[in-house]
C-alpha cells in the first residue's frame, strides 16, 4: 500500500513539475502509437470490411488465421521485426533498427490483426443488415466497403481504440526493436520496465499512472470529438 501511495506521489510530482524527460517520453509514446494506429487503421478497417462482404473459398481459414494473429506475443513480433531490420537482416540497409520507425512497424504488426478482427466482427453484423439493400442498389465492391466503413464508424472507432490501448501499453516488442535508448527511443512502457529493473518502484509506478492517465485521456478525447461531430444517435 505504501508503495502505491509513493507511486501516486511520484506521478503527481512528475506531472506538476512537467518533468522534461517525462514530457519527452510521453510525446514519443504518443507519436509512435498514434502513427502505428493510423497506419493500422488504414489497413485493418477496409480489410475487415472486405472480409465481411467477401465470400471466398478459404474465408473461414483466413478469419481463423486473423484471430490467431491477435494472440501472437508481442515479444515474438519484436524478435521478428528485429531480425528483418537488423543490419544482417533483409531490410538492414534501411538503417531503421533502434529508431521510432522500427517501433511503429512492430506496433502496426501487433495491432493490425486486432483492429481488423474487431472491425470484421462488427461490420459482419452491419453487412447482414445492409446486404439486400446494397445488392439491390447494384453497388460495386468498393462502394460496399465505403458504405460499411462509414456507417459502421462508431464500431470501428471502438476497434481502433482497442488497438490504441494495446499499442500504448506494449513493451516487449518495442524494447527489442527500439532498444529503449535515452532521448531516442525511450517511451513510457520501456521507461517503466527500466525503473522496475532498477528497483525504483515508485518512479515506475508514477510513470505507470501517467500511462493510464494518457490512455484514458485519449479515449475520452476521441469519444468527445465524435460526440460533437454529430448529435445523432448512431
Amino acid at each position, binding site marked *: 500500500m505504501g508503495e502505491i501511495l509513493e507511486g501516486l506521489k511520484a506521478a503527481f510530482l512528475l506531472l506538476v513539475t512537467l518533468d522534461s524527460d517525462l514530457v519527452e517520453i510521453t510525446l514519443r509514446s504518443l507519436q509512435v502509437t498514434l502513427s502505428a494506429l493510423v497506419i493500422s487503421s488504414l489497413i485493418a478497417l477496409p480489410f475487415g470490411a472486405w472480409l465481411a462482404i467477401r465470400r471466398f473459398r478459404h474465408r473461414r481459414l483466413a478469419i481463423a488465421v486473423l484471430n490467431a494473429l491477435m494472440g501472437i506475443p508481442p515479444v515474438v513480433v519484436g524478435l521478428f521485426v528485429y531480425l528483418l531490420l537488423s543490419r544482417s537482416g533483409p531490410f538492414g540497409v534501411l538503417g531503421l533498427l533502434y529508431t521510432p520507425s522500427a517501433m511503429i512497424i512492430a506496433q502496426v504488426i501487433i495491432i493490425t490483426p486486432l483492429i481488423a478482427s474487431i472491425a470484421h466482427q462488427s461490420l459482419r453484423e452491419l453487412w447482414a443488415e445492409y446486404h439486400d439493400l446494397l445488392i439491390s442498389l447494384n453497388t460495386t465492391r468498393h462502394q460496399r466497403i465505403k458504405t460499411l466503413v462509414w456507417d459502421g464508424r462508431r464500431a470501428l472507432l471502438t476497434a481502433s481504440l482497442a488497438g490504441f490501448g494495446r499499442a500504448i501499453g506494449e513493451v516487449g516488442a518495442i524494447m527489442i526493436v527500439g532498444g529503449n535508448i535515452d532521448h531516442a527511443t525511450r517511451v513510457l512502457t520501456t521507461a517503466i520496465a*527500466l525503473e522496475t529493473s532498477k528497483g525504483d*518502484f515508485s518512479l515506475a509506478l508514477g510513470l505507470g499512472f501517467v500511462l493510464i492517465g494518457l490512455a484514458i485521456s485519449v479515449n475520452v478525447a476521441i469519444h468527445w470529438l465524435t460526440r460533437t461531430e454529430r448529435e445523432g444517435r448512431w
Partner: protein
Amino acid sequence: MKHLVLSAVFSICSAVPILAEDLRLAVTTSFHNSGLADVLLPEIAKDTGLNVQLLVVGTGQAIHLGEAGDVDAILVHSQKAEEAFVDGGFGRHRREIMYNDFVFIGPVEDPAGVGNAESAAESLSSIKANQALFVSRGDESGTHKKERALWQLAGFDLEQFGDWYRAVGAGMGATLNAAAGMGAYAMSDRASWLNFGNKEGLALLFSGDPLLFNQYAYLPVNPERHSHVNAEGAQKLEEWLVSEEAEALIDGYQINGEQLFTFNATR
C-alpha cells in the same frame, strides 16, 4: 484524420536519417545500472562531439548485436565471449578499460552464515550446505556465466542442485527484486547493488575475493565486416575511454562514498 496521417508520415520520415555524430554502444545492464554512464556520456559529448546511444542489454545479446552489425561498439564483461567475438572477425580488437567487482547479497538474518566466509568458494559452500534459497540470473549474461564459473571452482555441479537454486532468467534488477521477494541469496555486481532501490531485507554479505573481480572491455565492431558502422566514432570513443580524463572520472565515481570502478586500461 488528415493530421494524424501527416503526423504518421512525418514521424516515419523524421526517424529515418541517422545523424553522423551518433554512436551506438551496446552495454551490459550492470554497467548501466551503476549510473557511471550518466557521468561519462555528457563529458564524451563535450570532448568528442559523439552522441553515444546506449543499448542496455545482457552480454549475450550485446555480443549478438555486435556480430549483426547493429551497434558500432560494445562494452561488456565476459572475457571468453569477447575473445571469441574478436577471433570470429566481428570485433577489431579487445581493449580492457576498467573493472569492478561482484558481491554476495542475502537476507539480513544470513541463515547460511555467508557473512563469516573467508572466500567466495566458502560462501557458496555454506549456501549449498544450508540449502538456502539462491536466485541466479539464468540469462546467459556475463554475471550469470561468472556465477556458474564460481560454483564450478567451488567444486559443485549445477545440474545436481535442488529447487533451492532458482534461475529467474532476468536482468540484475529483476533478479535482486526476486531475491528481496523470496528472502534469497544472489550474486550481483557492486554497482547494481548500490544503485538498487528496493533493498528491503537484503544486505551485502560478502565481497573482496580477487576471484570476484569483473573486467570490462571495449570492443569496436569490425568495419571490414560491416562497412556501415561508425568506425571513426568508435575509434574516437576508445581514445577517450583510455584518456586521463576518463581515468579520473571512473576512479572518482562513488555511490554512498564507495568507489565502484577501477580504471586499468593501458595506454
